[in-house]
């Protein structure tokens, strides 16, 4: 099987790097930017693009650890519910427990990490498949958010808290800095560290990774915990941006996050994927939303398109991969 691709690759006229998922996606992204810019003068303005960056941060922060998880062949469907739970606990601990706000933020981040840790510990120790574990906690965490809040919202946070979600820092939305830093760190970790390479090893062949002495369970535990922590961070950014907490926050985030990751070329079967791809995928999803909104399509129709994009990009990616593998 491994010898087959060689003669095929030699026959190809197009250089290999052009056929890379990320490159193709970046080209499509560029074309889409130009077309949308031509169609609507409000689109290709710095203000609009920066604002889109602001809006994509909440999903983006979660998409980074999700890339790690999907590379290992896992999945985390509970992220949207963790966002809801953390948002509720942020508001609740501040208003009801009377925590000072910085402590409340710390508390909600801790809860996010703990929620992710619970996913990770059951997935690695009991060997419950990630899909089922995170469907269960999708229900559980959302249920806790609803039960604790009793569907009541919390508002009226101190003024300084809105800085993260609504203000600019050096001319760029404040939360976008958070996302940029997270992107750089994730990219370095995935590409340049043993930890990052272990993720690919697990995704390609978990048994082999185990027999090679790689700490498979510990690595998995870390990435699911990280996923929860980033969902908690995303919740804080979201609350700061929309100035209120409600128990239905983050519903459907798993769709945007997974669509961005898969669209960015990370294989749903594991073993393949890059942070760079996820970033382009995120930009594509946000572009799609913004472009559709500017042409007058309502939000509900947008998720139709994102759902179709998710299925379609997986189809394309898997057929490309099959061709590469010479099947």
């Amino acid at each position, binding site marked *: 099987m491994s010898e087959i691709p060689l003669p095929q690759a030699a026959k190809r006229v197009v250089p290999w790097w052009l056929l890379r998922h990320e490159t193709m996606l970046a080209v499509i992204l560029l074309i889409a930017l130009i077309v949308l810019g031509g169609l609507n003068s409000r689109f290709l303005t710095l203000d609009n693009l920066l604002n889109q960056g602001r809006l994509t941060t909440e999903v983006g922060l979660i998409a980074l650890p999700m890339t790690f998880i999907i590379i290992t062949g896992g999945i985390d469907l509970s992220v949207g519910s963790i966002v809801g739970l953390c948002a509720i606990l942020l508001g609740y601990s501040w208003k009801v427990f009377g925590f000072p706000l910085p402590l409340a933020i710390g508390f909600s981040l801790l809860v996010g990490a703990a929620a992710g840790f619970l996913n990770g510990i059951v997935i690695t120790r009991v060997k419950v498949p990630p899909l089922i574990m995170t469907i269960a906690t999708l229900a559980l*965490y959302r249920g806790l958010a*609803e*039960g604790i809040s009793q569907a009541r919202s919390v508002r009226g946070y101190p003024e300084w808290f809105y800085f993260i979600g609504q203000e600019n820092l050096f001319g760029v939305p404040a939360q976008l800095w958070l996302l940029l830093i997270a992107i750089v760190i994730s990219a370095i970790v995935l590409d340049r560290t043993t930890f990052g390479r272990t993720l690919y090893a697990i995704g390609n062949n978990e048994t082999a990774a185990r027999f090679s002495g790689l700490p498979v369970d510990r690595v998995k535990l870390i990435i699911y915990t990280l996923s929860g922590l980033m969902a908690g961070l995303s919740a804080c950014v979201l609350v700061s941006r929309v100035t209120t907490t409600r128990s239905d926050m983050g519903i459907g985030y798993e769709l945007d996050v997974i669509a961005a990751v898969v669209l960015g070329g990370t294989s749903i079967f594991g073993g393949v994927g890059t942070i760079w791809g996820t970033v382009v995928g995120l930009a594509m999803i946000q572009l799609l939303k913004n472009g559709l909104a500017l042409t007058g399509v309502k939000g509900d129709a947008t998720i139709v398109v994102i759902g179709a994009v998710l299925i379609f990009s997986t*189809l394309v990616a898997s057929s490309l991969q099959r061709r590469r593998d010479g099947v």
Partner: protein
Amino acid sequence: MTTATLAGAEANPRRRLKVLASQEALLAIAVIGLAIAVGLYNPRFLAARNLSDVLLGNAYIAVAAVGMSMVIVSGNIDISVGALIGVLATISGTLAVNGAPIVVAWLAALVAGVLVMALQGVIIAYLRIPAIVVTLGMLSILKGGLISVTGGKWITDLPHSFHLADIELFGVLPFPVFLMIVVTILAALWMRYSASGRAIYAVGGNAEAARLCGISQPRTIVMVFALHGFFAGAAALLYATQLRVIQSTVPPNLELTIITASVVGGVSILGGVGTVIGSTLAAVLIAEIASALVFTDVSPYWIRAVQGVLILVTVIADILRRRRMAGA
């Protein structure tokens, strides 16, 4: 790991049967035990009116869970079914209001259900895309599509004859409960005794072995999804006809309740094991818990957390039990 577990289970067929039987017995005991316990706390819970309301209002979940159980036994999952039920209810109601013959309105839900699910089955089985990706995508297509087409407008003034759920057989047995029981028994018999029913277990239990036995895995999966679509259609009809209005939106998190019923009913998420009798009992139990929360003055906002805990506990117990059986 998986093969070892399965080998262990195959070596002890009688033991496996006993374990399965106990899952259903356990559920039956839980259903009755909970009724007694809550009845002691608040006797109004045991009023015939309340018990029949609980059954009537949730029969559609049991019907949908029958299809979901088949999907999970075949080693797949479907999270689009809640949205599909909302769409099918709206289609059926819209037809009925606009003067289509009632039977056509009913049939449309069943046919559309089969078509949508069979399409998903084809993508999953022949194009080999994981069920979670396909059904997550379909969930958002159906959900967004429904709201953008209808604007969430309520469908009212449904013709009287449309209300399937109002029919009482022999003057006592409400149709939804009748359908729930009949569907469960027929599906259980079919899965247990027919070759195509057994094929679902074979495909979910050990795809390679099933292939060697001459069972077409893709064809079985498409069949399972098509059937699942049929049951979703039937569930949608019960759902649409039990109230005077149809909300033409997607019932929130309905898929989670249906999956919970299947999993708590003993359908193993690793595929290959489970019965629909268990899933129907579990659907009744979940409905009973939701009602019990109200009668014990616990806020109903906790129901989803309870569902999450139920799935978690059942799944962990299932896996530990399999591990012990494999070790034995």
